[in-house]
């Protein structure tokens, strides 16, 4: 089968099936090249100009996000962002979505998502220290969704467990809109010494390009354009885009790359992972950053299959591969170094001065285009947003009619979104490396930094119901919830990575959701002075034209200055006083209770007082640092009902509370609140700190009962009954 000629590509508009628009194609042929691109060249443009690689539809929106603070050493643009944590150390982190691959092939899609984000971290010379993930699926009421959940979770665990990086946190939720388009976002955090920082760059004439890792096969070709494409029943052939992950090889690659960057930085100029759009994206990005040219000889690329074309090799997304730019005099050292790790390393090209991207295959020059044109000349689209009709004007709150307080309490606990996810996350090794201080199950996961008093807290959050009903405030809430999770653990929020998961941005209503929610995220980040240092955009999350809820995911990292400050959400002992910090209003729109009673969420959200929010964060951190607090849990979905129950479960304790709130308000999801326990001897000091803005609800008990007296009724629930509802809900639905 021979490749279409340039003329055929133009006349049959083949480029369109690869995602290039007519305007883009003519810009390439008329303005950039002055001739028609051949088959391979057209392929390179189509992947490099896809949304996944170029952010052409979202760049404008992303500029809203603040990316600087006194701690930022590198922001967006590198493989991952870098945050200074003092003592010459830094953390590097990033999140990545693997939604479409996981829909097609859940195990491998999730596994390679984890593998890909780990490479982003170690390509910076950082040692990966923790993984997190955020997963969204359809309702757990059909076999197909159960299968997806089982396989995605197995893929995440399979990769992370084998490579030996602890998975310390994440989130999982279930909503009809994700049934055919699940979201799989993975985040990795690495630790780095500032001085070792390596840019992914290829510079200096005649420096060599070295390929390391697995062989190149036909897997995943056009994965990047695939990720930027809508899904429909018709596109069954997308199955060919499957990539297969191999965590064993990645472990060797990780150990080798970290060692070569840290121990032999004089040999190398740049390191880049091959992620989406494989060889072309990694090498073109390397070259364009330094305004150099590049020459590659594909005959040297280790190949797994016979007869691969240049097009196939350049676009292959075979996993576990890296490229390095090295000094020619150290070529032997580098190749021998990788050989010791049983890794294949070969020189495939060199840096040139002519700013051209030249690819040779079987002795012929098959690509000859300006490097810049792949990365810098991508058109940027300015979309027009229109407010969706469903978004109402008034902020009137839903009034939940609660027939039975007890029944509603138990229903909230057994709702899959709130119920314990232990059955799923216990399949992840959360402790390997022996640094995990807070494992999944509390607010944020925490790993200590060996040899220092410091620890890193991290969380993944997204509440897409809120973003759906009110994109701007929903965006704000997402960041605030993440920040409260960090603060509850004793951490100071220092940086954010995100995954922006939305539908088709060419739909003005969806673009409006994107634009508004990012504005909300940006405004809160500025207010809290927390920069967004890396991230990822995943658009076109639709199935047969049904878009998902707008689902920005926030991955936040916090610094805990002293491990003695680490706090968890679990009640510690009977007799401790229980406080609610922050005031409770009637916030039922977008809430769990609304969803349960109405079967849907609707209505706008109340505006958030960011000053109050910030003040409460400061109070909590202050109290934690003064060691006044025994446990701290932020309030989110399910309000006080969920927070009280979750805090009680861990140590099998009960509680006895008496509140001025109504039973309804126990389900309210007002922002800026924390549930805190305190040794009774510290009553005065803590109330001083809380400064009026609190209610002392009661105390922790060990009589295995939840005793609740609200403004309108009394209720006793057996701990065991509540626990059963919460703990068994997911295993029950899964089996």
């Amino acid at each position: 089968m021979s490749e279409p000629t340039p003329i055929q590509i133009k006349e049959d508009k083949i480029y369109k099936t690869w995602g290039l628009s007519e305007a883009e194609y003519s810009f390439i042929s008329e303005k950039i090249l002055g001739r028609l691109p051949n088959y391979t060249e057209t392929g390179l443009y189509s992947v490099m100009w896809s949304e996944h690689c170029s952010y052409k539809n979202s760049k404008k929106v992303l500029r809203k996000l603040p990316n600087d603070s006194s701690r930022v050493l590198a922001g967006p643009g590198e493989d991952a962002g870098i945050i200074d944590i003092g003592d010459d150390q830094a953390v590097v982190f990033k999140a990545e979505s693997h939604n479409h691959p996981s829909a097609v092939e859940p195990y491998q899609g999730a596994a390679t998502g984890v593998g890909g984000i780990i490479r982003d971290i170690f390509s910076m010379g950082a040692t990966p220290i923790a993984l997190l993930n955020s997963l969204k699926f359809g309702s757990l009421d059909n076999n197909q969704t159960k299968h997806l959940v089982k396989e995605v979770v197995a893929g995440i665990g399979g990769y992370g467990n084998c490579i030996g990086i602890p998975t310390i946190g994440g989130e999982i939720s279930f909503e009809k809109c994700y049934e055919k388009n699940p979201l799989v976002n993975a985040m990795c955090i690495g630790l780095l010494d500032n001085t070792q920082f390596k840019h992914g760059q290829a510079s200096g004439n005649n420096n060599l390009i070295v390929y390391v890792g697995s062989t190149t096969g036909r897997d995943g070709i056009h994965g990047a354009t695939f990720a930027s494409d809508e899904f429909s029943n018709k596109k069954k052939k997308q199955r060919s885009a499957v990539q297969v992950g191999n965590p064993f090889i990645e472990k060797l690659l990780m150990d080798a790359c970290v060692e070569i960057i840290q121990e032999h930085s004089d040999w190398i100029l740049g390191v880049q992972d091959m992620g989406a759009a494989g060889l072309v994206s990694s090498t073109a990005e390397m070259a364009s950053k330094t305004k150099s040219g590049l020459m590659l000889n594909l005959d040297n690329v280790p190949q797994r299959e016979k007869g691969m074309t240049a097009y196939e090799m350049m676009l292959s997304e075979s996993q576990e591969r890296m490229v390095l730019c090295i000094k020619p005099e150290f070529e032997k050292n580098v190749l021998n170094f990788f050989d010791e790790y049983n890794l294949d390393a070969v020189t495939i090209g060199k840096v040139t001065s002519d700013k051209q991207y030249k690819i040779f295959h079987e002795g012929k020059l098959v690509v000859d285009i300006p490097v810049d044109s792949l990365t810098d000349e991508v058109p940027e689209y300015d979309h027009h947003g229109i407010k969706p009709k469903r978004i109402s004007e008034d902020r009137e709150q839903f009034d939940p009619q609660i027939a039975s307080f007890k029944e509603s309490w138990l229903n909230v606990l057994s709702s899959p979104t709130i119920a314990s996810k232990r059955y799923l996350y216990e399949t992840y090794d959360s402790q390997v490396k022996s640094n995990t201080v807070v494992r999944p199950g509390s607010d944020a996961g925490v790993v200590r930094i060996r040899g220092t008093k410091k620890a890193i807290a991290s969380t993944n959050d997204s509440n897409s119901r809120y973003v759906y009903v009110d994109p701007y405030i929903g965006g704000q809430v997402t960041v605030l919830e993440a920040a409260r999770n960090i603060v509850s653990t004793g951490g100071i929020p220092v940086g954010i990575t995100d995954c922006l998961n939305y539908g088709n941005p060419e739909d003005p209503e969806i673009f409006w959701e994107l634009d508004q929610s990012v504005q909300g995220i940006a405004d809160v980040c500025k207010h809290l002075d927390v920069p967004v240092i890396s991230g990822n955009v995943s658009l076109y999350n639709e199935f047969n034209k049904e878009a998902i809820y707008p689902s920005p995911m926030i991955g936040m990292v916090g610094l805990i200055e002293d491990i003695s400050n680490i706090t968890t959400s679990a009640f510690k002992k009977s007799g401790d006083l229980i406080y609610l910090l922050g005031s409770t209003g009637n916030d039922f729109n977008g809430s769990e209770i609304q969803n349960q009673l109405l079967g849907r969420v609707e209505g706008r959200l109340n505006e958030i007082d960011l000053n109050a929010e910030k003040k409460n964060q400061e109070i909590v951190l202050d109290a934690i640092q003064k060691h006044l607090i025994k446990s701290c849990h932020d309030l989110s979905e399910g309000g006080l009902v969920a927070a009280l129950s979750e805090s009680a479960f861990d140590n099998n304790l009960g509680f006895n509370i008496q509140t001025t709130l109504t039973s309804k308000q126990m389900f309210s999801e007002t922002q800026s609140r924390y549930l805190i326990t305190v040794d009774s001897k510290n009553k005065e000091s803590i109330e001083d700190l809380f400064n009026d803005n609190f209610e002392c609800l009661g105390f922790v008990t060990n009589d295995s009962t939840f005793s609740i007296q609200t403004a309108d009724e009394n209720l006793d629930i057996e701990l065991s009954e509540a626990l059963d509802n919460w703990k068994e809900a997911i295993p029950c639905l899964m089996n």
Partner: protein
Amino acid sequence: MNFAVITFPGSNCDMDLYHAIKEGINQEVNLVSYKEKSLEGYDGILIPGGFSYGDYLRSGAIASHAPIIDEVIRLANQGKPVLGICNGFQILTEIGLLPGTLTNNRQNRFICEQVGLTVENNKTLFTSKYDFKEKITIPIAHGEGRYYCDSETLHGLNENNQIVFRYDSDVNGSVDRIAGITNKQKNVLGMMPHPERAIENILGSADGLNLFKSMLETQKSEVQ
């Protein structure tokens, strides 16, 4: 005391063990590659957890053919202490230093959690610092941790007091709730739970520390 932690491609708890020795009991320790052929000069051999060779074929199966293995067997037969944890336990059964086999958990899933163990034999060089029937908490993290052996072997294990740790509840379907066993001579211990992850309270438990202390104490008393 001078310890060797043997590293295979894919081992991932090697540094955990290293730190347990260095920081937990303050002794000499070196990482030794699977490519080596000699363990001269070491007083204790530690085989770490992880996924040697990606757990291809069966966990531990490919590692059992690595160059270092003959030397491990030689030292074990000389009576030197050999400890295999998790993947290390799997390797020790594959090379025949310990009886039985580890295979898929009854749940057919990987499980990571803190579990309760009972010390069933405190008269070994690995457990002398524990009380008999002491209850301890140590984490597990494995997908293939179900211990299996035939009834004759089980009988022998019981007769010779080779069962050192038992799970307090049935966590993975192991025969007789076995979590760790020794060889007949009691100088080779294999266990699925990770004592090296339980040497500091901040990590959730320090109950694993006595295992390493026991090894040190026994060696000291032997030297005297």
